[in-house]
């Protein structure tokens, strides 16, 4: 498989210069590197600019409701564990409308990889604040500037016990595709929050703004993503310097392992034509 095998015929509708392009490329690269076939991949998304991504890649796709990608993805994985399941979602989709599924699926820990196109704005609906919009940023709805504390996705994920917590940058495709590859290889829920400039509606967190601040934690050989307390400190960093990389890692059994389905054929492949329930009748006699 090479990059062109993942090319979709659908027209891309993102704005020129949008950070989403970099994520698309990085994802394709990661899939090529991992040697995955389109037929074995399932991309699940909600609604938003980010959530259009599955149409732009040759792979299975379930483009569902705004905010509801993660439950679809987790269940699809459980039902057919032969699939490599990846969620492409936005900061609104995942942390806003979909917040409850985000929390509880970290706990559930099915083997899915969640790539959040975090442009710190609602792109598709034309520029309202998202949960990660910086305080003070003015929009048509937040006319006096955002007054809510931004949501800290990495801190939250660590607090919830997520086993793979990473941050990438859409403009650094080499690094991002590596992160996505690692996320997919991690068994369990993997979060990759991706800084993604929205050139149309986010006039603050631009390529330049991010470019000045980002650095890679994994460049420091002493950085140990397995150490929760170091990781948590690192996750708190946001401002003058913004860390990229695998911030936190913990190995823990996945949902599939704990539920026992890892040792069964994929549920979808179990023959159902002649299930005999008569042995159970005795319990109702």
């Amino acid at each position, binding site marked *: 498989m090479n990059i062109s095998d993942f090319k979709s015929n659908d027209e891309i509708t993102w704005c020129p210069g949008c950070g989403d392009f970099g994520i698309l490329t990085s994802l394709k690269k990661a899939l090529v590197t991992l040697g995955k076939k389109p037929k074995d991949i399932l991309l699940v998304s909600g609604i938003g600019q980010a959530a259009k991504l*599955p149409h732009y890649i040759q792979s299975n796709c379930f483009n569902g409701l705004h905010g*509801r990608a993660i*439950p679809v993805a987790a269940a699809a994985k459980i039902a057919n564990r032969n699939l490599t399941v990846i969620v492409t979602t936005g900061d609104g989709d995942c942390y806003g409308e979909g917040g409850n599924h985000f929390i509880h699926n970290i706990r559930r820990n099915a083997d899915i990889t969640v790539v959040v196109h975090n442009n710190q704005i609602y792109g598709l609906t034309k520029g309202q604040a998202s949960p990660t919009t910086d305080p003070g940023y003015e929009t048509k709805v937040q006319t006096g500037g955002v007054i809510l504390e931004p949501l800290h996705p990495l801190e939250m994920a660590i607090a919830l016990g997520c086993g793979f917590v990473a941050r990438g940058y859409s403009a650094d495709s080499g690094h991002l595709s590596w992160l996505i590859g690692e996320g997919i290889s991690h068994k369990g829920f993997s979060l990759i929050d991706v800084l993604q400039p929205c050139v149309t509606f986010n006039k603050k967190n631009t390529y330049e703004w991010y470019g000045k601040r980002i650095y890679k934690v994994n460049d420091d050989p002493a950085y140990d993503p397995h150490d929760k307390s170091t990781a948590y400190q690192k996750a708190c960093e946001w401002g003058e310097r913004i860390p990229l990389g695998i911030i936190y890692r913990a190995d823990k059994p996945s949902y599939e392992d704990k539920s026992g389905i890892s040792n069964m054929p994929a549920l979808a492949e*179990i023959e159902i034509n002649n299930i005999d329930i008569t042995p159970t009748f005795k319990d*109702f006699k």
Partner: protein
Amino acid sequence: MPNEFTIKIAGEAGQGMQTIGAALSRLYKKAGFHIFANQDYMSRVRGGNNFFQLRVSEKPVFTLHQKADIVVALDKKSVALHKAGLSDKGVMVLDRKQSGISETEDSFFDVALHELAASIGGSDIFINTAACGVIAGMTAMTFGLLEEVIREAFSDKGSEIIEKNIKVAKAGYEFAQGNFKKKAFSLNAGPLKDTLFLNGNEAIALAAIKAGCKFYTAYPMTPSTSIMNTLAHYAAQYNIVVEQAEDEIAAINMALGASFAGVRAMTATSGGGFALMVEGLSLAGMTETPVVIAEVQRPAPATGFPTRTEQADLDFLLHAGHGEFARAIYAPGTIEEAFYLTLKAFNIAEKYQIPVLIMSDQHLADSYRDIEPFDLRRIKVERSIISKEESKEVSGYTRYKLTESGISPRAIPSWIEGVIYADSDEHTEEGHITEDAATRIQMVEKRLYKKMAGLCGEIEKPTEYNITGASCVLLGFGSTYGVLKELCEKSGNTLGFMHFSQVWPFPAKETDRILKDAKKIITVENNALGQLARLLKRECAIKIDGSILRFDGRPFDLEYVDARLKKYL
């Protein structure tokens, strides 16, 4: 009350009415009687007042009476609360001393249950067993049968406990034989039959297992939860994943994800939880993903009466979801229908790639009846996917291919060489987002007109009984089946009934044909608006003459409907 009697066991939540009820049910079943049992409980874990009611009969029974012949009052409150619910010759079994009741009445049968349990069993916990013994004695059961029931019930508790229970039961039994003088409660047992005894929720769960449901997800909500409990109990044995969702939105979306990935999937809830699934229902319609949803109704709006019964979500289920798409809605009237229609629901959902709803309610969910074992050949599992074998041959696959029937062949991801795009936006045949007007029209026709046309060819036939002869025909759907049936049978030729176990697509033509000469038509509905009557008005040509409605959270009983019928006869 010839050939039957009704026993009501009442007390505080936590006093074990269900335990007594279950034991007595087994007892009478073993004795060859027929049973209809229903439950009335409050939304609390301790205290209050609940009851388990058991109608025991020589002939099959399908519904309940308003009054009980024997009331077992396990606490003081129950005596006052259920006195009015005693039949003419009814007996109130009570422990006057324990309940602190000084007065006495003709109907009272005072049994020192407490003392009996303590002195013979050594503890209060034997009260329930003592009560069983008393009732067995009052109803002329042989003690051997009760002993059998006790041995089975406590089989995993060790012999000491078993023997103690038997001793206590015996004492109660003998006390009743010695002291209960009225001999009103003796029936003639029929031949012993190999029947099942289960409730509506259990029937739905068993059908889901049989249908090959491999992924069940739900968020707990009374009165639907026992579907999940039953499936969870058998999950390991039948290779089913039962996953408690974080909320109902997750449940419906997980069910859709699992279904898309290739398994038969189901969820269940009650009205409030279903309200949260409405967006997902619309998603199922748009993405053409099969899913089976049981909505076990309870009185609403909002939290309402969490543990009681109502049929007020008919209109809601018919029209839930933004936009227009095909759906099917079944409204089983009996335990048997709950089973067969759930099986059918899975087949239809998969065939038409639509959401299928099973509309039940607390009364059907929690009521037990003895029934013939299910005929497993009656409804076969009919798969409507491209099998793994066939998948090898597939090329150039498009998920939403336009076809005559509106149904596009459905492939499973990873089975075919190609890829599958499912999409919640308006989409092309490939499943990509489109803004095209002509495509939109084709897709609406596919999802709505064409699928509805197909579904109309597979409508479940309504039950009809004595339509032409009757001077009044009663109409109902869902759990009212039993009361309609028994009323009509008892009425000689006066009453007829028609029961709809499928309410969408509605069998409109069939109904007009069947009812065209009906003299008077009355709907019987557990709601305040007469929603079935409204639906008939919209869908059919026939005229409805009135509705008998009940919306106090309680199920219909024979006498309730009978009394309200008078003005129409």
